[in-house]
């Protein structure tokens, strides 16, 4: 008791370095994963929690190597199953701060079922979804997020499959928190991660990540120095949806229920006309429109797109157990063994 009070009163000041393990980082030089690792370590140091309360749980894929590089509790599991393993860990031990790391193949192909059900249940954890639109670890096959027509080793004539938009899938599973960032933007990623951890329930953080080896430049329009400001819209709750090099572009609602990009100062548009972002509204309609914007027609939405309060799965689980325990006359196994119809043999 005294120990835990102490822990709350004066948490050790941790630095990103405290979260670095002694393992050599083995991602390709220039891989977007390096930036995300830095963002995570930076964010965790700011969370004010002791190291032992973190568990990083991953599946299989390049990004799923993540736990080995973190000096926290970690579990590098099997392909696709990280969301299920993390769900069990959090239900078993609700005090843990769980970061579940997956790539687009791990979370949305082989693990698609676990992904949507974790989101539906609203288990309190952060799912860090590395979206590089390719299978990297197996050396370059198309993934469920690869763009239609993309030529890869298993689609030498171009894919004939429609890609998933992860946000659409998540909203369909009734996601309460959805955010998006870019691997190179460490500041934004760690800022989002702090929000994601504060959110009670499943928080999905999609990171647009560049695989320099097998799908270089997949997100170039929004990451390229010359174009990025035109194609990035960083959303902040309560702020207007303004973007562009000159900060003169914005979104308004068109008459047909579609978002329209406008320029402030043209056609009588003023700043007051630009939409204000409401991340907290339970109605997912606007969040769906925002998260589905693609370049070059639209800017790509980054930041916290949706952040709606709700009770988490394990909060309800713990509460239900408490409620039943308060009512039941069975307090231990001996009570249960002797409950109901029993009889004595002399």
């Amino acid at each position, binding site marked *: 008791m005294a120990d835990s009070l102490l822990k709350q009163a004066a948490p050790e000041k941790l630095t990103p370095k405290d979260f670095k*393990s002694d*393992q050599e980082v083995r991602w390709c030089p220039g891989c977007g994963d390096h930036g995300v690792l830095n963002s995570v370590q930076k964010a965790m140091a700011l969370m004010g929690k*002791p*190291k*032992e*309360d973190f*568990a990083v*749980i991953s599946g*299989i894929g390049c990004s799923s190597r993540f*736990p*080995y590089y*973190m*000096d*926290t*509790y*970690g*579990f*590098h*599991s*099997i392909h696709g*199953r990280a969301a*299920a*393993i*993390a*769900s*069990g*860990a*959090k*239900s*078993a*031990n609700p*005090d*843990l701060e769980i970061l579940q790391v997956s790539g687009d193949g791990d979370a949305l192909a082989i693990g698609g*079922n*676990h992904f949507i*059900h974790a989101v539906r249940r609203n288990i309190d954890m952060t799912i860090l979804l590395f979206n590089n639109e390719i299978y990297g670890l197996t050396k370059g096959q198309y993934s469920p997020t690869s763009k239609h027509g993309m030529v890869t080793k298993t689609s030498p004539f171009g894919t004939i499959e429609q890609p998933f938009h992860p946000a659409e899938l998540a909203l369909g599973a009734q996601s309460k928190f959805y955010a998006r960032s870019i691997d190179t933007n460490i500041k934004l990623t760690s800022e989002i991660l702090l929000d994601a951890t504060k959110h009670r329930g499943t928080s999905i953080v999609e990171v647009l990540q560049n695989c320099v080896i097998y799908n270089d430049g997949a997100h170039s329009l929004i990451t390229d120095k010359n174009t990025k400001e035109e194609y990035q819209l960083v959303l902040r709750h309560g702020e207007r949806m303004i973007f562009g090099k000159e900060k003169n572009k914005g979104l308004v609602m068109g008459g047909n229920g579609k978002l329209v990009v406008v320029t402030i100062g043209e056609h009588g548009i003023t700043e007051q006309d630009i939409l204000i972002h409401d991340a907290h509204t339970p109605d997912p309609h606007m969040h769906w429109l925002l998260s589905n914007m693609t370049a070059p027609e639209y800017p790509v939405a980054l930041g916290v797109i949706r952040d709606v309060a709700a009770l988490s799965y394990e909060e309800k*689980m713990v509460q*239900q*157990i408490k409620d*039943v*325990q308060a*009512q*039941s006359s*069975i*307090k*231990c*196994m*001996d009570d*249960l*063994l*002797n409950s*109901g*119809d*029993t*009889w*004595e*043999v*002399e």
Partner: protein
Amino acid sequence: MSQKTKVIEKEEVVIRFSGDSGDGMQLTGTQFSDTSALFGNDVATFPDYPAEIRAPQGTVGGVSGFQLHFGHTEVNTPGDYADVLVAMNPAALKANLKWVKASGTIIVNEDSFTDRNLEKAGYDSDPLQDDKLADYNLIKARVTSLTKECLKDSGLDQKSILRSKNMFALGMVYWMFDRPLEHTEEFIESKFKKHPLVVDGNKKVLRAGYNFAKTIEALAYNYSVAPAKIKKGTYRNITGNKATAWGLIAAAEKAGLPLFCGSYPITPATEILQELAARKDLGVKTFQAEDEIAGICTAIGASFAGNFAVTTTSGPGLALKTEAAGLAVMTELPLVIVNVQRGGPSTGLPTKTEQSDLMQAIHGRSGECPMPVIAASTPSNCFEYAYRASKIALEHMTPVILLTDGFLANGAEPWRIPKMADLSPITVPLAKEGDDYMPYARDEEKLARKWAVPGTKGLEHRIGGLEKMDVTGTVSYVPENHQVMTDIRSERVRKVANFIPDLPVKGEENADVLVVGWGGTYGHLTTAVRELQKEDKSIALAHFNYILPLPKNTEEVLKRYKKVIVCELNDGQFAEYLRSNFQDIKFEQYNKLQGLPFTVKELKETFNQLLEEK
């Protein structure tokens, strides 16, 4: 009761209640068995559900049965053949006649033998009218009309009246076996306490059936089965699935850990998940996962996070859990995987029993991936073996497979209630704050690593499915290390043999024939062998609960006998396993794959034949 003309003392009796799935036969059977158990008989029961929940009414496919065996002596099986068959309609008679003893009693609901029902059951002519049943003691009772007559002024609607006709049949059988009605009357009062009319109606019909049997001349005698000589103690009835669930909860309590069950519903294992879900009062956490894989994966996650984790399934589900089971072996986390076996392959016979997942349990994973395999052998000892499987999992830091089967799962018997204080302690190798922790450092006795639960300060570490370096637990591709770790994984399982009891033998050391069985066939094998021993036949039984590793005295036992016959409800999987372990012992086999348990009769015939062969 003084009016009874003749009372026949019987050692044991088998009754089979059968009717349409809506006729309430499970309830009727359960009531009779509870009453008999309270009376002091030893009892074993087995329900026989139709495979389809809504098979067409009145057809053979829709017949639901409940068989019970009660006796003055030890009862180990629900019985091969029935002394009394209650058939509520022609389909029930058709489906069950072959299970009635020659000259047994058949009670039929005469009202249901209409042309239409006969046709639905597939009868060309009315068996009550021709002489097909001449060899039986046939009792025709107009159950439907007598029930209607009895309740015509009850104020109940027609549907409720018809529903209570099972009580009429139960009343009749209660009279035949001289059973008191009180237990069932109390049951009716509590079950329908919100509907006083239904309570009165059911009690009235129960008594009407009892009085009817007393009055009619067809039942000029009744039977009496004296209480059995049973060990002193407090008893209750329990099914295999409930006993399994309770064994797991007991182990968690003993180990001082919360119980977590990640599972997906599957016949015939679902009741374990249901029973655990109902036990929130004991802090049990159940997670109904999106699929079988998530069932085991949530359990592995829970185990990583410091709960005692289990997953429950049946054969096809175990196949889906295979890869994750390998992860549990690699990460050396405690986990109990319960497989309630059913007829396979594929969807197979979901509601029927079989023992054909043995090889899957022993070998069915990628890589060299051993884990202990344990089998329960009676409905009530599912508690004991679930507890033992849990103890091994937790103390040895390993996944364990517990095999039961559909026969054990749904079967029920009286069970002497244990006291928690009498169960052996479970000591969990938890790492503590301040320990100099190495994830894959081990103790000598068990080669178990320590369990460092997330949240413990200073013990942060990483585990996973990649091969790990001995002691340090970092990822390792070193060839020699893989050899070392493979050897350790198999040695860990072998070492479990030092912590399990010797294989017991029932019978003489130098008998001519040794019968070998494992798991759910215990009741039938033990009855067959006991009966032959009473006839002075030179036969003994060795029944296995510990499959992997085998008890240490296994070879010594098997070698003592000239003839060894391995009996199992599969095509010879345990026999093959024993052959691969003991190459110079000759194993005969007796196998059956009909979705049904053995009958004592067929076993005795087989053993007699073997005894006669020189």
